[in-house]
């Protein structure tokens, strides 16, 4: 058993590259976490995660309770959406969502009634007795997506451990990006909740060891977590696995999953594999706290902690905002100086994106909102030509060749960039940060990735179209062949009959009964007539549809003609059936 008094059980290693950034975290840590308030409207996008959007299960005008399911997950990568408070569904429509494109997407608008009335809940304190699949189902249904910023469906991530022995469950409390303090505040104030979540998650995936990684620039968080861990040990709680708090040096981007794994275990995650494949699972501290609340208290993910910071805010700090809270409502509360706000950035300054408008909601992945002044984030100087200094290569945490990738991206040779492992790029922005020519390297990579993804999607749909086309061709061929075979069989039967009939007159002892002769002839003829009638019906239908379309006076006549024809067809069918039954009855 490890304990905090035994440091060094985990040898912290370094990852290549990385940069040290001014952290700018103190501004938002002056105050404890405050509630984000109840805005007049909540806008809930159907997609707040990676993967397929959820499907609405409520309609406009419905009254909903807090925690009620509004949109159900569509497949394992999808995540459901719940009502953050009780109220009225006023609209289900397209509206602006927090996305770098500034585009609209489907959102549910909820007008809170202020009562905050819960749906019926089924708390589950004795989760240790539950099966893994039951717990997983509960996590799936609770709408949790990675709260660190990736938005990957948490249930899916936990499920990825199926069939793998997990040696280490890593809790990511690193939060390496400047300005963001949401996880730090959570660790300082709700360490117990995080440890409960850790215990639950470790139980669920049967992890052998738990590691909690925190950067050394967060002493208060480290202390709070260590205190909580010591209390847990004394209480002989449900955290039955060896657990250790690992303090790692401050270096961006140590919070990246691959980088963190490399720091704690020395293992490099091979290209195209998941951490579960090498027996590791990483979760953000806020995510496991949400898992705890979802499983034990039956509270789906309804709110999240978001850091409001930047020099344009008079009162920065962390708020626990309901999902769907409009950004401008939060900014107003934080005393935003609208005139001084030059940039409005969602996420951190390195990996976040500029919001085209403040009329967008808080979503599950919104960890930070920076309202920056010009002095704080001056406009980027114009990009100049690459001088091949090689600094980008020095800082790349994935040991890629940023300069080489830039040439390919600039020259639209995206496939060559792909061969140089473009898709291993984590878009941390370290290369662009150090570039003395101010080249927006990451933007180039993002564009290249976008082009390649689009091409892949097109190729996939082309392959599908080819397959469908070939299947259709094969089907048509088959149908044609079958038809031909039937026609030939009929012709042969007729021939056989013709040769039989004269022979029958010649030798009376072999003469078949009249019914035997009559039946085949009858069916033959009837079948032919029926085919003709069908063709005529088609023609009539066509003429009728044309007449209807042009509103011709002949429409009623045609309708009558069709009805008559249908009757005739039915009579023919009846005759055919009658003719067949005796024929079948006589032939053994």
């Amino acid at each position, binding site marked *: 058993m490890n304990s905090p008094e035994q440091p060094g059980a985990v040898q912290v290693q370094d990852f290549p590259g990385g940069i040290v950034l001014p952290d700018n975290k103190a501004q938002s840590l002056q105050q404890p976490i405050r509630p984000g308030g109840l805005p007049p409207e909540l806008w809930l996008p159907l*997609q707040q995660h990676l993967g397929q*959007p959820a499907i609405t299960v409520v309609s406009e005008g419905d009254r909903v309770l807090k925690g009620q399911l509004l949109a159900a997950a569509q497949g394992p990568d999808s995540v459901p959406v719940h009502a953050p408070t009780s109220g009225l569904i006023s609209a289900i429509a397209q509206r602006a*969502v927090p*996305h*770098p*494109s500034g*585009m*609209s*997407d489907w959102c549910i608008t909820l007008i809170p009634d202020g009562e905050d009335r819960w749906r019926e809940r089924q708390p589950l304190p004795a989760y240790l007795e539950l099966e893994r699949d039951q717990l997983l189902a509960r996590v799936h249904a609770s709408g949790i997506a990675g709260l660190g910023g990736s938005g990957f469906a948490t249930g899916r991530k936990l499920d990825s451990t199926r069939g793998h022995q997990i040696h280490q469950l890593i809790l990511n409390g690193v939060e390496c990006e400047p300005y963001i303090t949401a996880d730090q505040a959570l660790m300082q104030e709700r360490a117990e909740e995080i440890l409960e979540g850790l215990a639950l998650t470790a139980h669920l995936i049967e992890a052998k060891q738990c590691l909690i990684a925190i950067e050394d620039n967060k002493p208060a968080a480290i202390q709070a977590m260590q205190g909580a861990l010591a209390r847990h040990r004394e209480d002989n709680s449900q955290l039955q696995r060896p657990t250790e708090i690992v303090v790692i040096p401050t270096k961006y981007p140590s919070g990246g999953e691959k980088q963190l794994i490399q720091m704690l275990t020395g293992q490099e995650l091979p290209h195209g594999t998941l951490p579960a494949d090498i027996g590791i699972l990483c979760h953000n501290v806020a995510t496991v706290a949400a898992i705890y609340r979802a499983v034990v208290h039956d509270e789906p993910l309804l709110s999240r902690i978001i850091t409001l910071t930047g020099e344009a805010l008079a009162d920065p700090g962390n708020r626990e905002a309901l999902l769907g809270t409009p950004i401008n409502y939060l900014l107003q509360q934080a005393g935003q100086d609208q005139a001084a706000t030059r940039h409005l950035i969602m996420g951190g300054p390195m990996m976040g994106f500029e919001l085209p408008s403040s009329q967008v909601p808080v979503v599950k992945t919104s960890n930070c909102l920076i309202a920056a002044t010009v002095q704080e984030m001056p406009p980027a*100087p*114009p*990009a*100049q*030509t690459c001088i091949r200094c090689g600094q980008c290569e020095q800082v790349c945490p994935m040991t890629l060749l940023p300069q080489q990738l830039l040439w390919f*991206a*600039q020259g639209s040779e995206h496939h060559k960039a792909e061969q140089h492992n473009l898709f291993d790029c984590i878009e941390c922005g370290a290369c662009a940060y150090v570039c003395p*020519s101010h*080249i*927006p390297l990451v*933007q*180039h990579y*993002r*564009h290249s*990735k*976008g*082009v390649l*993804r*689009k091409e892949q*999607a*097109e190729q996939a*749909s*082309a*392959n*599908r*179209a*080819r397959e*469908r*086309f*070939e*299947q*259709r*061709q094969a089907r048509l061929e088959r149908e044609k062949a079958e038809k031909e075979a039937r026609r030939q069989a009929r012709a042969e039967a007729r021939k056989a009959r013709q040769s039989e009939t004269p022979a029958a007159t010649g030798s009376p002892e072999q003469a078949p009964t009249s019914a035997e002769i009559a039946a085949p002839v009858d069916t033959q003829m009837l079948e032919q007539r029926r085919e003709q009638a069908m063709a005529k019906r088609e023609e009539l*239908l*066509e003429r009728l*549809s*044309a007449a*209807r*379309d042009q509103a011709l006076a002949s429409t009623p006549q045609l309708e009558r003609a069709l009805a008559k024809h249908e009757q005739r067809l039915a009579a023919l069918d009846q005759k055919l059936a009658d003719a067949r039954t005796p024929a079948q009855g006589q032939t053994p």
Partner: protein
Amino acid sequence: MIDASVLIPLLLAIGALLLLALVFGGLLGYASIRFRVEGNPLVEQVDALLPQTQCGQCGHPGCRPYAQAIVDGEAINKCPPGGERTIAALADLLDVEAPPLDGEHGQEQPQRVAVIREDECIGCTKCIQACPVDAILGAAKQMHTVIESECTGCDLCVEPCPVDCIDMLPIETTVRQWYWDKPASGVLIASDRRGSL
């Protein structure tokens, strides 16, 4: 008369070479039968580059027949849905000059999808028979609808519709397909502020 000491090594060398030639000839002959490639693999490669719209604008009943025709020497610029990109890829594969798109077969345009105005549909099944990829769902006298994800935008269903209730609509980019634009290329002289003055 050639000396035997010269003749023997000479004959030995010739004999050895002859033996080797026979062995390798036999091996190659066997391999050419044993590992024979069925069909022309080039057709497959060309077919893989075509957009699989199956629209027939090139004058062939589908992409594969056109791929076969290209291998047989037909021009590579008859595919409007593929456009310049397909022509460039084909030229690259076949190592020929990339000609501009042959306007006779149509113009390149953004990908579209067929949409049936469902209340006007009379259920005649004509579009279903025309669709090369079975992307239209319906039955006689029942309303038809297009499976959007499978529609290649080939236009072939528009013509047979007796009531003209099929529209070809451009596919709109949503949040899920959007991707970052290419950053503007850098200026050579950083102090050049012509735009901002």
